[in-house]
């Protein structure tokens, strides 16, 4: 039986294809075909030998067809073939990057989240440099059914070894119950948030939550949850789902599957999903969590994307998914407060501060009375504007930018 993992062939970069023939011939034989063999051939072979030693394998033929895979990829691919051969849960782990050890706050900014196919290492390496708030390593729809097993190792290793430069580290698991198995591979390894796809009942959230608690054991960390509503049943139970666990911090909507469930076409105008989107927004806001909009799938049409983002923001969404790095800037840009919002927020904030100072019970700006929720929104807008660099932190003194 020959076991294989990984990818090779035309257009494949930063990946490798491994084939393992166990127990044939004498001892360990390793052959490396790589365009960087002269640079890294020695270290690749050392890694292989170390892994064979770790798993106690003394006889095997290993063939590596490498297109510049980084160590985290090589190790994931080799572990996948070895564990296909051996029945073991023993994990071969490379060291965790110290900068990858962080927790995120439940209400951290989640405007842009970049989806990455979980079995494509090339796209992971630079994913953190584009300034998105979250990175989703996807084990679900973007991974071919035959590649689900090996993708888990790659995603786990990426969580440990790839620097995402402070982005929230997210994993979309498979639909339950298969998704519960994914949790074993990722929960102990610096994941901040789990996306639960095709979620249509609070029980599913509870199952995931319980499994995570079990895996974490004594560890004092939190892994947040973001259920994705993708059918009519989920829409109708959105509020229950949003409140299913205190670890649920956001709720997203997936419109491709939702429109398919309704048996309608997904249109750019989006009339067919208006109700569903409003339900998700209201359920999430009522539960005190972030509502997140579906991805926009035409990666070449930045203008329509920008329109969609502005609409999304005006409906009440707090963020949107991205399927290409080029969408990140457009989404961030259009979700952030624009000039007129900032101007208004400045006026209200100043009026509020003045009222506070003078001990007045009411806040007034432009001869209108301002309610407290409006003041709070203004304060939040100012905070966002300052954080994103759209407003100088000393705006009170500099009178603006």
């Amino acid at each position, binding site marked *: 039986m020959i076991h294989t993992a990984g990818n090779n062939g035309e257009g494949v970069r930063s990946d490798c294809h491994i084939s393992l023939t166990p127990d044939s011939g004498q001892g360990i034989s390793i052959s490396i075909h790589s365009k960087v063999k*002269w640079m890294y051939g020695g270290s690749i072979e050392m890694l292989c030998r170390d892994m064979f030693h770790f798993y106690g394998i003394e006889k095997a033929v290993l063939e590596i067809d490498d297109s510049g*895979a*980084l160590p985290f990829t090589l190790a994931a691919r080799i572990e996948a073939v070895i564990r296909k051969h051996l029945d073991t849960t023993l994990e071969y782990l490379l060291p965790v990057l110290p900068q990858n050890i962080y927790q995120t706050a439940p209400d951290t900014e989640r405007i842009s989240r970049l989806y990455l196919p979980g079995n494509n290492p090339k796209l992971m390496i*630079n994913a953190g440099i584009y300034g998105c708030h979250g990175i989703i390593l996807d084990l679900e729809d973007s991974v071919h059914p035959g590649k689900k097993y090996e993708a888990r190792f790659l995603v786990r290793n990426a969580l440990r070894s790839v620097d995402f430069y402070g982005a929230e580290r997210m994993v979309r698991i498979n639909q339950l119950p298969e998704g519960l198995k994914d949790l074993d591979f990722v929960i102990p390894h610096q994941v901040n948030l789990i996306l639960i796809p095709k979620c249509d009942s609070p029980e599913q959230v509870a199952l995931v939550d319980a499994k995570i608690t079990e895996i974490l054991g004594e560890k004092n960390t939190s892994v947040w949850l973001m259920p994705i509503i993708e059918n009519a049943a989920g829409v109708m139970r959105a509020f229950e789902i949003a409140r299913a666990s205190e670890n649920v911090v956001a709720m997203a909507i997936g419109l491709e599957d939702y429109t398919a469930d309704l048996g309608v076409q997904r249109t750019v105008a989006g009339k067919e999903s208006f109700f569903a989107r409003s339900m998700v927004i209201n359920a999430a806001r009522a539960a005190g969590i972030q509502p997140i909009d579906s991805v926009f799938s035409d990666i070449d049409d930045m203008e329509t994307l920008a329109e969609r983002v502005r609409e999304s923001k005006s409906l009440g969404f707090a963020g949107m998914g991205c399927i290409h*790095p*080029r969408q990140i800037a457009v989404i961030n840009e259009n979700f952030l407060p624009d000039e007129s919002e900032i101007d208004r927020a400045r006026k209200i904030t100043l009026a509020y501060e003045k009222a506070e100072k003078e001990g007045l019970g009411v806040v007034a700006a432009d001869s209108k009375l301002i309610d407290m929720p409006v003041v709070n929104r203004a304060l939040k807008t100012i905070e966002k504007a300052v954080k994103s660099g759209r407003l100088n932190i000393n705006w009170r003194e500099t009178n603006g930018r």
Partner: protein
Amino acid sequence: MADKQKRNAAGRMIPDMINGQPVIPFMGVGKYRPQGRKHASGISTCIDYPDDGNKQVSGLKEALVKAGLRDGMTISTHHHFREGDLVANMVFDCASELGIKNLCWFPSASFSCHAYLLKYLDDGTISHIEGSMNGPLGRYCSEGRMKKTAVLRSHGGRFQAIQDGDVKIDIAVIGAGCADPFGNANGLNGPSASGSLGFAVGDAQYADRVIVVTDNMVPFPCIPWQIQGNYVDFTVKVDRVGIPEKIVSGTTQITRSPDRLLIADLTARFCEAAGIIHEGFSFQAGAGGTALSVGNYFGEIMRKKGLRARFARGGSNKYLVEMLEEGLVEYILDGQTFDLEGVRSIRENPDHVMTSPFSSYNYHGKGNFASMLDVVILGATEVDLNFNANVVTHSDGYLLHGIGGWQNCLFGRNVILPVPLFRDRIPVIRDEVTTLCGPGELVDVVITERGIAINPRRTDLIGKTKDSGLPLKKIEQLKEEAEAICGVPRKPEFTDKIVAAIKWVDGTVIDVVRQVKR
């Protein structure tokens, strides 16, 4: 092969003889002062040329025979037809049929289509190449299979070598999209129109014999005559000089790679922050995907701020032409025309001007355009901690690219190298470049997707950008980041055999390339 070697001013070991010629080692930027008078071809007389001006002969082989082709000569061709060039291959087919041996091929650049000539390097028709070494030819040379030592020069260095007589061209064969029987020629019209023929201008002037080859022979006069018939000995009409769709290939598209777009965006933002983009500024951006998008971002900044560039040097293409026609750029000084829009523009628009390496790049002239540029955007295969850069070999030691105008452009006021930090696990920033093509004192800024390193010599740029919010880092820091991700690579191993010399813009030797140990 040389027996003695000495260290040049860049610290590289250089032989004292290459191909039987004495070598002047690199002495430092602006240190070598040439002596003597320029080279010239022999005096011609109208006695030897037909009064009716018709110099057309039946075919290329006849022209080569009449031009006196014999063993050991130096034959020049040009790369205006780029990947679609048929001329160089035809020339050596003829030479081979005539049983001629040991020719030096002196192209202005080579392309993958010239892998066809490997068989003539094998059978001794061609002894060596003095020009660029791309793809399969570079591999052949790096494996030590070329009979003599290759010599690589920049476009400006090639003109300098011709003008100074370092290289004496016996026969120049100039392919042209349009010509008349007298020898006047341009690249503007006909099925093989390729734009400016600038690279052949010096060859026409200095070569002993000049042959113009076209597939579009028009009655005298061919207007305009970028190549003057008065320099030309013979004209030839062939069925095809080039493959049109490969002459203006689709390589010149703005990149869609998010990594490269990010690097291009950082480059433009850096230039804006450093005050490089101002009313009346000038720039040169190459034809690679990243460089094209830098030009695009420049355009956005200029539109936003209401600025115009006085001139752009190119490498022209549809994007630069759009900027010219929109009024963002007042003039294009064009050295090479990359696409059909560029060809149309240079034919129709008087503000889109043909140049040659003489005006743009020649270091042994009374100035050149490259040093007047406010900013140049260049590529590199490697950059080291001293900002030295490599553009001809990859980190595995194999020759894969020519120098082009790269060395010449290093004299621009602000030289920026936008490069990825690593390419498929191969780090770009190294302790020391494998091959030195450009001294670090001329490289001002390295821009990667993970940070920008400014040459410490440029305290002015450091001062202007320190509060810009751009990710400024030390170059050592960039190298460490790359190695943290990729690992520390082993260096390639070489034998002692020198396979190629890298000339500096003044004709001195800045480095050599040794045979890769396999």
